């Protein structure tokens, strides 16, 4: 099994210099499909946001309602008071089509991913922190040691937070804005505080996902962009000594 190459951080396993599979094919494929969907959702999400860069709390809110806050951005609608002397072109139509299609692909990809990591043991072995790993010592080790063959405890906690908290939250808050979904499961909207609250929360969860994305890319670059990209594209990674800078 390809999984055997993930040695525990403290283990004595030494990867052979020959190419071994760092990431399984399912993890690689779902990673890149998710990455594409994320970029599509981000670009289209920003475009959708520009048609009303104001946020409210509760069920309802519009330009006649005091906003919870507003973003200092121009808008693609003349009806929104922004302080800018111009109106951006309307990109809302294709953005919404793309947003929902990318969301579907991301959710379906996520289902494949979860089924795989559960069934293959990847979740238990490589994502759940190992026993005794939640110590100050292993966290400080995580900050200094660069082991390309295993996720350290901070990586594990971050990935778990993203896939178990942020992804479900961004889907839930997104669905809560849908009038059809709200009619089917009204409580899923009211516990969030209402449809405008759901929209505001959707924005904040998206901001957290963008932060994760930025840190993730920064870490990949810091740890060795070419080798890490090769590992996630081809699955090939060579000797860990090569990775240590």
């Amino acid at each position, binding site marked *: 099994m390809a999984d055997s190459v993930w040695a525990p951080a403290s283990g004595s396993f030494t990867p052979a210099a020959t190419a071994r599979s760092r990431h399984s094919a399912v993890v690689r494929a779902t990673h890149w499909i998710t990455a594409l969907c994320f970029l599509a959702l981000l670009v289209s999400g920003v475009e959708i946001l520009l048609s009303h860069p104001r946020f409210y709390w509760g*069920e309802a809110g519009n330009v006649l309602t005091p906003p919870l806050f507003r973003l200092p951005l121009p808008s693609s609608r003349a009806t929104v008071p922004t302080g800018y002397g111009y109106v951006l072109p309307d990109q809302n139509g294709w953005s919404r*089509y793309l947003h929902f299609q990318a969301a579907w692909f991301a959710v379906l990809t996520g289902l494949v991913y979860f089924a795989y990591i559960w069934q293959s043991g990847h979740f238990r072995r490589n994502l759940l922190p190992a026993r005794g790993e939640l110590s100050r010592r292993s966290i400080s080790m995580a900050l200094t040691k660069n082991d390309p063959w295993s996720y350290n405890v901070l990586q594990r906690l971050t990935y778990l937070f993203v896939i178990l908290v942020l992804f479900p939250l961004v889907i839930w808050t997104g669905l809560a804005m849908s*009038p059809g979904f709200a009619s089917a499961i009204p409580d899923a909207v009211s516990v969030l505080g209402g449809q405008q609250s759901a929209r505001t929360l959707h924005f904040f969860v998206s901001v957290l996902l963008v932060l994760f994305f930025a840190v993730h890319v920064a870490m990949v670059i810091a740890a060795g962009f070419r080798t890490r990209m090769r590992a996630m594209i081809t699955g090939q990674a060579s000797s860990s000594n090569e990775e240590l800078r």
Partner: protein
Amino acid sequence: MSTVSRRSMITAGLSVAGGASGLAGAATVARRYGLIPPDGGGLYGPGETLTYAAQRLLTRHSMAREFPTEQISKTPFANAVDPLGDAFKKLQAGGFAEWRLAVDGMVARPASFSIAEIRSFPVSSQITHLACEEGWSYIAQWTGAPLSQVLQRVEILPQARYVVYRSIQPDWWESVDMADAMHPQTLVAYGLNGSELPVGFGGPLRLRVPRQLGYKSVKYITRITVTDSLKSFGKGLGSASPEGGYAWYAGI
């Protein structure tokens, strides 16, 4: 590598073939049960079809949330519309006494109703959320005749699948499937928050579809057409929205 790659190529080939035939089978079933929206072709067809099919399987009979009176928005927002034409202004000057709502197409008894006649249908009232696709919203009380009652009066034919409705404003028309047309909360609305429906909000008559976004609630409606196919309407995408780049189904 060669043995591994042969096995993986066979596996990959089988998965692709299986996936493709699975998709083709799913598309056939979806078409058979009317789960493909009229704008279900093209680049965003898969996403739209998944959305519409999921909604039709899960929410065919669900009810839009209704709110208590105290949650009615103090400041509802009447979105901007194109300048109203001469035809509208003439009817407005006459207090809308000459306004007519024609109902035709696949019906046994086509009819044309005045506003007084629409008001003579059983009155339905609802306090619901109207959300614009831009992101803003308001809660208001809408009063009107259930569209299902109007359609029953003209006796729709069994092959009816969609209801097309038009504004007096040029190039402003929408359509819904029978699930939304016959839904008890879909209204031919003439009242807002206890008063006559103001012109800004779509008066004298607006089709109110509370399980979809605001743009499906067309203002100033003058004609309702029952049909079994949307192919011959406009560009055949279901309504003016997809022609302008917006999804036909706005229940998301």
